[in-house]
């Protein structure tokens, strides 16, 4: 069983997590063209390297961010979204370094 480290709950079986897609900027829903919105919803980068992804720890309903190499599946880091989107605010938890 793969183990992923949740910043709130610690290391858990991967079966406890749900993938939420790439972290990418959302266009303004009221101003974006249909094409821009469709691109946001349906398209993603497909490069090999470190990607930034949304994951949810299902039992706690806690969304967080994972930096993962999509070729080796090595997880570099997991952290609270406040670190990315609301720097300076109090996060739901302190960031935790992924297991080596």
């Amino acid at each position, binding site marked *: 069983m793969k183990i992923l480290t949740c910043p*709130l*709950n610690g290391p*858990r079986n991967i079966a406890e997590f749900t993938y939420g897609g790439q972290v990418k900027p959302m266009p303004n829903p009221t101003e974006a063209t249909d094409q821009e919105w469709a691109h946001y919803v349906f398209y993603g980068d497909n490069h090999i390297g470190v990607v930034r992804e949304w994951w949810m720890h299902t*039992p706690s309903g806690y969304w967080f961010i994972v930096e993962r190499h999509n070729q080796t599946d090595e997880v570099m880091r997991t952290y609270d979204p406040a670190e990315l989107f609301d720097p300076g605010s*109090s996060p*739901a938890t302190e960031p935790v370094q992924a297991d080596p």
Partner: protein
Amino acid sequence: MSLRSPLEGRGMIEGHGGLRLIDLTLARRGGLRGSGAREWLLSQGHTVPAAPNQIVASGESDSVMSLSHREFWLLQPNCGASSARPAAVAVAAGIWPLYCQHSHAWLQVAGEPRAEIMAKLCGVDLSEAAFPQGSVAQTQVARVSVIVAAHQDQDGRSVFSIFVDQSLARYLWEVISDAMKEWLG
């Protein structure tokens, strides 16, 4: 209209080593979520855990459980459940009530072999060494999402309180009671 437990009629299961499985679904609990929830609970005279995923005694028989820095449940096993839903308005600015009385069933496992029983069902090590009194795990038991809290009941016994979605309560009762079988008389 009064609340009913999905485990109505299940009674209690007892076994060797003080083993006991009971249904506390009709005991009172309430939750709060919001950036000011901790301060609000403190202002009401409650003891509040210092970090997420912990449970502390508060007052004579209550406990406060932290599920994040912003979410807390107040457990009151000596009080009956209130059938009224909490108002859908803020308790205070930025602090919202949670419907944990209505959303979750509350099972409690007491007795010496409780960690061994849970080891059959749960990937998290719930032994006393790894999961001491005061610990809370939001995890899966028998593949369903639960909250497990290690604390003492009102009689001073070490217990696991297990909170599970009401719709899964019967299933979880069955799998825990099945895991208990080797300790039953």
